[in-house]
């Protein structure tokens, strides 16, 4: 198969996916806009806060356009959104987008470290379990991943910061240092929170890879490869893993969204002022524009991740139609 065919197919698939995104993003925007109706009582009153004067409430009402008809409100919301205007946070008194873009590098660093942990633990564990299916190594991985899936990241994070960060002081317990101040200071601050965040993804990857790789290793062509004298390790890496990786990629895509949600808890525990911390503060304050901005931003990231997953599918498996 020529590269051109693959390229064209991938492109047409990308096109179809992008078209399908339009209604999806429309519904997401409508849902995000509708969050305002969940506010009990008068939204303007609630957003202005306890003890706000009548003028302040009125200011919030006209500021949010709450005095306009509903469809007008939605169109304004949509229009602003399309221009990248997510509104102004009531607690931080700053444009939401500025807050998000300032904190984004922190959360991206954390998420990347978490994902690296997840892959570094999950893939070898999954391969080991599949190659030793039914043996004790398999059982250890199964028990480990079951345990990993059941441990909420705030529980793990709490234990890590209390024991490794504060008691033994092997790694910083809280805070974040920018990479500009050195690679190790940056990384050392992210190791504990990254691990706490990544364990669930690691467990999910290990499980998925074990199942799909064990299936692949039972196939005839794998037996043929072994029979013609290929080293078992080469068989696994060359024939097995390439075919078994697809479900893993799906998991990685799905887990990106979970990681983003998990940062809310992990950043709170480790005192990292990223997007998760921003989300929690916004929620505690009932800061509607900030909450809406975070939600829209998170959906864009998740949707992009699943798009990348689909493209990778098309690349790895050019004959298959993506569902």
């Amino acid at each position, binding site marked *: 198969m020529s590269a051109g065919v693959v390229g064209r197919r991938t492109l047409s698939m990308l096109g179809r996916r992008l078209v399908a995104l339009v209604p999806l993003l429309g519904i997401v925007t409508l849902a995000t806009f509708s969050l305002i109706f969940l506010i009990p009582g008068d939204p303007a009153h609630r957003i202005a806060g306890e003890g706000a004067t009548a003028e302040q409430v009125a200011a919030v009402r006209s500021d949010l356009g709450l005095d306009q008809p509903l469809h007008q409100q939605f169109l304004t919301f949509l229009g602003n959104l399309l221009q990248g205007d997510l509104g102004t946070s009531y607690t931080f008194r700053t444009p939401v987008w500025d807050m998000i873009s300032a904190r984004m590098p922190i959360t991206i660093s954390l998420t990347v470290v978490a994902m690296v942990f997840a892959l570094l633990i999950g893939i070898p564990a999954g391969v080991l379990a599949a190659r030793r299916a039914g043996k004790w190594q398999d059982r250890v991985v199964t028990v480990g991943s079951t345990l990993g899936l059941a441990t909420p990241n705030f529980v793990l994070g709490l234990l890590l910061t*209390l024991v490794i960060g504060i008691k033994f002081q092997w790694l910083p317990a809280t805070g974040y240092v920018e990479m500009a101040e050195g690679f190790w200071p940056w990384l050392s601050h992210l190791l504990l929170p990254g691990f706490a965040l990544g364990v669930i993804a690691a467990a999910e990857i290990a499980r998925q890879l074990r199942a799909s790789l064990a299936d692949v290793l039972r196939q005839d062509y794998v037996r043929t490869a072994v029979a013609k004298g290929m080293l078992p390790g080469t068989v696994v890496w060359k024939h097995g893993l390439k075919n078994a990786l697809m479900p893993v990629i799906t998991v990685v895509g799905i887990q990106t969204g979970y990681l983003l949600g998990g940062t809310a808890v992990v950043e709170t525990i480790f005192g990292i002022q990223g997007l998760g911390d921003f*989300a929690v503060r916004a929620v505690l304050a009932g800061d509607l524009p900030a909450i809406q901005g975070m939600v829209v931003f998170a959906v864009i990231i998740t949707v992009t991740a699943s798009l990348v997953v689909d493209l990778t599918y098309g690349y790895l498996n050019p004959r298959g139609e993506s569902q």
Partner: protein
Amino acid sequence: MSVLPTTRTVVESPRRRFVRRFTGPWANRFALLVLLVWLVAAVAAPWLAPYDPLVQDIDARRLAPLSDGHLLGTDALGRDTLSRLLYGARVAGLAAITSVGVGLLGGLVPALLAGLLRGWWDAVFSRIADALLSFPPLLLALAIVGVMGPNLTNAMLAIGVVFVPRFYRVVRAATLAVREETFIEASRSIGTPTAWILRRHVLPNVLSPLAVQISLAFGFAILAESSLSFLGLGVQPPDPSWGSMLSEGRAAWFYTPWPVIVPTVTVVLTVLACNVVGDGLSDSVGREKGRA
């Protein structure tokens, strides 16, 4: 494989086969036991708890487990850890049942309609489900709690909304599969009303994949409720929840680690049990292996 069926395959009913397969592995039996303990604790907390979970005893602060009438010790304020744990079990149970109920309420009927009637029902509901699925689950719950105000009821509702598209997808897929069966076609051809087909034929066949999802959802509900309560967005202090116990216990960690260790073990064990039961169910109902 022998040509003649063995006696067992002839005699064994599907239900008995399911029970035999499900209760075979020790992990499943252990998980059921954990869930049973959780259920008893949740239902009988007021009678089982040796102390009032809110009462502070200045003379009995930071006691280690097994000391002086406090089986699991006390926290920094002198509150009995066992009593708080039992009431926390009640909160976790309530959160799990309510959120799964909300998820079923919102997901089940649209899914049955979409799967059975196809057409624009399916198109509309499936687009909405796709959109809901593109929200990161915990963040969606956070957002809903954020606008509705932080308390347990809102937290449970928010977690329930997270389940709606997930239940929808599973039930819709199962309904689509059942729909193609000959007996449904036969039933339709003799003019059986749709509602009756749904209740009599489709629902029972959808139950097994749904049961798997429900037990996994229970695990996620506990996880989410304790996370939200940990952040101060669910159960409000001084009311006990496993999550709020952890966040309160961390401050006194160096004087006594037990108020942190006890709820940690409990949360992990209970979520673990829900997941193990979910996996066990999916292995036992005779469907293909794998998780949705």
